[in-house]
Structures are given as structure tokens and as C-alpha cells.
């Protein structure tokens, strides 16, 4: 294996790892947010519109960590600066 092959293999492995762990954390956070929001809506049905809007904002903030992981994974796969 020459250097380029090692870099390519490491990049693919890195992309898989970063996407897997990135999605893992975001999914965990989103599930907690979703359950908390459902709980709050069940307690206060009158406030559901307000709660749902705030939930969407928080959801997108959590989602963005997964999106950062996705961007890193895509950089590794398609725009890798170390692949000559």
C-alpha cells in the first residue's frame, strides 16, 4: 500500500465514523428534545403552537451538529485536501 491508498482508506473510514457518531449524538439529543416537547404539550395543550415552534428551533440547532458531521464526511469523501 502506498501513501495515497492509506490516505484514501483512512478517509473513508473517517467519514463512516464521523457520520455514525455524529448521527448518534444528534439522534439521542433529538429524541430527548422530542420526548420533553411531547411531555410539555401533553401538560399544556393550549400552548402547543408555541411549544412546537420552539421545538422546531431547538431541533434545527441539534440537527446542525449532525449537519457539521455530514459536511466533514463529505469533505473527506469528495473534497479531501490530502488526496493528490
Amino acid at each position, binding site marked *: 500500500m502506498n501513501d495515497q491508498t492509506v490516505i484514501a482508506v483512512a478517509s473513508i473510514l473517517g467519514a463512516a465514523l464521523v457520520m455514525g457518531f455524529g448521527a448518534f449524538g444528534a439522534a439521542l439529543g433529538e429524541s430527548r428534545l422530542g420526548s420533553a416537547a411531547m411531555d410539555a404539550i401533553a401538560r399544556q395543550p393550549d400552548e402547543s403552537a408555541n411549544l412546537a415552534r420552539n421545538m422546531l*428551533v431547538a431541533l434545527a440547532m441539534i440537527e446542525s451538529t449532525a449537519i457539521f458531521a455530514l459536511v466533514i464526511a463529505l469533505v473527506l469523501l469528495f473534497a479531501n485536501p490530502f488526496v493528490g
Partner: protein
Amino acid sequence: MSEDLFGSPVLAQVVGVPVTAGMVGSAVVTVAVLALAGWLGRAAVHRPTSAPAAAARLLVGFLQGVARDGAGRDVPALTVFGGTLFVFVAGSALYGQLPGVRAPTADLAVASALALVVFVAVPVAGVWVRGPIGYLRHYLEGGVLLAPIEVISELSRTLALALRLFGNMMSGHLVVGLLVSLVGLLVPVPLMALDLAIGLIQAYIFTILACVYVGAAIQVEETA
């Protein structure tokens, strides 16, 4: 993967300046938004009971609500600023649904430019409202040791703003593109709908975050 995911293809060279698809897309969206706004505005002035006038009032009321939610109080200039960001980002998401084009915000350069606008708007608004001394003092509110961290957080949240918008728009486009190349018929439709919904939600997020950042900079101390 032939398509460049992070930039956008250069369509032409005008006097040595490359014109990319993202620039053309932003220009198209800007013209479309201006035309729509002119039409709605004229309708609201001349025919106050017509349907376009009602739509215009609903839209402006929604944008006012977003700015108020972000800043905590009514600031007309912030409504204009946030509303401009919202209609541009939402218009880009709608434009990205047209066949054969990408949303301009799925181009890293356009998303970064929007985030830079917010980055510049924060100190400008802060100095405008509180004066240079008053604005600079808020860096020291948490203590001298925290001031560098405050600066770093302003830089990192600008980066996050740009990457969040870019990543969401680009990933939606990528997923739809992959599915079209795999199945092609009908299967990508739900994901295209999801992409559209995500685009509109991202427009809302981007706007409300911009309003929160600017709103925090123009916060006048309530304690007397």
C-alpha cells in the same frame, strides 16, 4: 459524483470575474423577491381589501413576530433586516425546487456571505444603539478573562450559521439527487417535500438566530 458539492459551477467569465451558478441563482431569487414585494406592496396600498394585500399583511405580521421573538421587543429596523434574510433564504429554498438548478444557499459562498452579513450587522447595530463605548463594554460584562471567549463565540457562531444553512440545503439536494439516480420515478417525491420543508424551517431558524444575535447586541440595560 461528478457534481462539485461545495462550490458551484462557473457558467461564464465576465471581464475576468467568474460567474457561478450560485451568483446567477441569488440574482434570480433577488429579482423574483423584489418583483413579488413590489406587486404585494402596490396591492396593499391601492387595493387594501384584495387577496394579495391580505397575503402581504400576513407575511409582514409573521416577519414582525419572528423579529419580536428573536429580539424580545419590537424593533422596526430589525424586522426589515430579518425579513430580508427570511424572504431571501426561503426564496432560495423554493428556487432550489425547480428542476435543474440548486438552491443558491446550497453554495458555500452564498451561505457564508449571508452569515457574514449577520456577523457585520451585530457590531453595527450595537454601536448604532448603544454607542461605541457601550457596545464594547458588553464584552467585559462577564469579566476580562471571558472577553476573548466572547470574541471566539462570535466567530464560531458565524461559522455555525453558514455551515448550518449550507449543510441543510446541500444535503437535501444531495439526497434527492442520489435517489433520482437510483429510482427516478415518484420515490424521491416525499424527500423533495422534506427538502422543501427543511429549507423553509432553515429560513426561519436563520432569521430568528440573526434576530437573537442582533437583539442581544442592541439590548439596553433595563436595570436603572
